[in-house]
């Protein structure tokens, strides 16, 4: 078959990107991995974990000027059952950490985490008894965003980086992996049923 982008002297250069049914018919050849990853990465529904001022920038990223829906992530889900990526936007206090960890546990696999801003990444300027020094102490973080707070463009960049990461995942090999109780973070925290019960009772 002829390539759709032939350059010929004296003619108009036409370039076709992506799937063109007139050329390729109604059949797409691809790998299952890439197809599934393509579905996944273009509809990463965020769990907006807005805890401080970063949440304002998160809202700006969702509004018309920056428009996160260009990347398929406009569906902010306030239910962890329906979301794919938790955007931790803001200062995580120890008191909130248990709730955050519990919401992360409730999210269905596959799930990803973006630590947005200095506070979520490292504790930021809050070197204090009350602030968790980086959300990666309790959940596995995929992308860190620098800034205090980061611009919406930085969040969109993080989202694109996460999409790249998602598109590289060999998911057919890991689909049946038993995730089981895992330990997360630098401290290897395992949240037990007891601590979740305690969070629930407060």
């Amino acid at each position: 078959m002829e390539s759709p982008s032939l350059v010929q002297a004296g003619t108009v250069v036409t370039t076709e990107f992506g799937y063109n049914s007139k050329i390729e018919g109604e059949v797409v050849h691809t790998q299952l991995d890439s197809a599934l990853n393509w579905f996944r990465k273009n509809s990463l529904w965020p769990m907006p974990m807005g805890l401080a001022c970063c949440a304002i920038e998160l809202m700006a990223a969702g509004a018309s000027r920056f428009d996160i829906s260009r990347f398929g992530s406009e569906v902010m889900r306030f239910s962890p059952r329906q979301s794919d990526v938790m955007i931790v936007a803001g200062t995580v206090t120890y008191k909130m950490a248990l709730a955050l960890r519990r919401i992360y546990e409730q999210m269905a696999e596959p799930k990803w985490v973006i630590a947005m801003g200095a506070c979520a990444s490292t504790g930021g300027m809050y070197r204090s008894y009350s602030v968790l020094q980086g959300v990666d102490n309790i959940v596995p973080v995929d992308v860190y965003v620098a800034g205090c707070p980061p611009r919406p463009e930085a969040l969109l960049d993080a989202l694109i980086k996460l999409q790249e990461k998602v598109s590289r995942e060999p998911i057919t090999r890991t689909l049946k992996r038993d995730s089981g109780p895992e330990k997360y973070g630098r401290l290897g925290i395992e949240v037990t049923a007891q601590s979740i019960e305690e969070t629930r009772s407060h």
Partner: protein
Amino acid sequence: MPTPLELARQLRETFSDLLAEPLEFRGEVTLVVRDPERIAEVCRHAKETLGYDLLLDLSSVDNYGDEPRWTVVYELYGLAHACHLRLKTSVGEEKGSVPTVSTVWRTADWHEREVYDMMGIRFAGHPDLRRILMWEGYPYHPLRKDFPLAGKPTDLPEVAFTRAAPLDGGPFVTVAGGADSIAREPRSRTPED
């Protein structure tokens, strides 16, 4: 319209020896209640007879190293006569308990919970004396002078991930009396143990 000083004198006439002479400083009147056990009684009288119908704030001071260690401060305000009054009472560490005023002003409920949480002063008769800012089960009271800013690692299993915050690189503390700005404003300071 009464002045804050007149109202404070009226309050002192009612309770005589219980209250010290009102102190006025820049238009602010402070009354010291000598017996912390009777603070609720004084507050109820101030509200019901003198028209102090609003408790603006309830806070506490840690006089670390002095005795008595705690001072509880009540900021009163009357909407009708627009006068402020500050009541102070002191309580020692071994007792560490003051009668609640949440029966006088309901707003004192959360204020007293905050004081209990941050300073560890208990309020006798409080309807719901739980922590309000820190999580339930946290063993320390962080606003005390002998509590390091970085925090302490807690030994409770369910909150085992709390540990002292790293203080290198911040916060930007100052040291009084340093020779130059490098000594006065160090990049970091190790918390006093």
